[in-house]
């Protein structure tokens, strides 16, 4: 019978080490991506929030510029400004908790708009047995005060 000696043990050690390196690298990449996205999205949201703080309701041009979507359905003369700001497809990110955000009426100095912005990111875990993917939603919960008086 052919003796393999230490070969299987050596191969097993190499596989374990490769997996350790791959999994560690995947975790480091995922964490770095998280931090980078968190900071980038936060910075952009702050510009959006600053605009929002001076508006009675979200204006079409601001929403389209921010979302990068031209297919937002703007509704005139109705209480809700948009009917598809959540579902408008394209870039992947979306709003939830949008009642305050798209409500046309009722904001004035001191009122706070709450909304949540969600950015889905794909986390990939690399191993020698394959790549495992999992989608993690980065949620940004915001509270933006209205800083202008629109009515007395």
């Amino acid at each position, binding site marked *: 019978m052919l003796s393999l000696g230490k070969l299987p043990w050596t191969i097993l050690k190499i596989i374990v080490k490769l997996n350790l390196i791959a999994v560690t690298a995947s975790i480091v990449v995922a964490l770095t991506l998280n931090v980078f996205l968190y900071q980038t999205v936060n910075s952009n*949201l702050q510009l959006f929030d600053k605009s929002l*703080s001076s508006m009675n309701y979200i204006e079409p041009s601001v929403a389209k510029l921010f979302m990068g979507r031209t297919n937002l359905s703007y509704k005139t003369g109705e209480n809700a400004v948009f009917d598809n700001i959540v579902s408008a497809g394209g870039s992947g990110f979306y709003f939830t908790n949008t009642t305050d955000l798209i409500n046309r009426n009722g904001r004035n100095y001191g009122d706070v708009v*709450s909304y949540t912005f969600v950015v889905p990111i794909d986390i990939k875990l690399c191993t020698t047995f394959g790549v495992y993917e999992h989608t993690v939603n980065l949620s940004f919960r915001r509270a*933006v005060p209205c800083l202008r*008086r629109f009515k007395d």
Partner: protein
Amino acid sequence: MTGVAKGVISLLIIFLLLSLLFVFVSEYVSQLTATNLLHTTTDMLFDCVISETQLLLARSDWYSLCSTDFNNFESDVKLSTSAWNTVFNDIRNNGFSNNPTQYGMTFLPRTYLQNNLLIYMTTAMRYNVEGVDVGAVKNGHMDINSANSGKTNYLNDSQVLSNAYFEVIKPTINITLTQSVQGQDSEFYRTFLSRSQSNTGSSIDTDIGNDYVDEIVVYEVNISFDYVIPYLNYFVREATGTYGRRGTYQYRNVYFVAR
């Protein structure tokens, strides 16, 4: 056996180093986020101050609220230019029943703003993210854990205005306004307003429309206050012996009034 012990110790060291890395990275991200929010909040405060001033000067009781500031503004500008004098005279002749905005004129009332800046700051600080009490501002510390009372920069609760990310030391909130009259040949006018290289013929948008303007009054606005950004991790608080990072924030912007 020695090999196994070495392996275990190595793993423990790696685990400790990774934990420390995680603590400091999360603290760095937290401080960065809070600093960004501080910048944006103060920027919002500036916009708030401008819009509130414009509304104040449109009120019928504007003079009773900011007579000192108006008188100072009038005496400063009258010394420099005659373009505004007809407006000042008309307002006085009508017993201050007309307000400045009826003449397309605004100014920044320094005393009034200084007295009301804390109120505006409280509203602006409702801007925050992800906190437990999102949109809430309170007097006192965000974290009132008594374990922090011994830290070097933990302050008296009555002095502090806080939201979920940073704290402002109330007595230090200050606004200074440096006022100057700038003609069409001034550097400010040429840099920010003029579409023309010549001294004449340039027009700018004013409250009374797009017009030729001989002089503008320029305000350099400085807002400053002391702040504390509490450390996220208790480990960092213990390691540094401080409750948070303390500093003085200086904000500068420019506002101009055309006539």
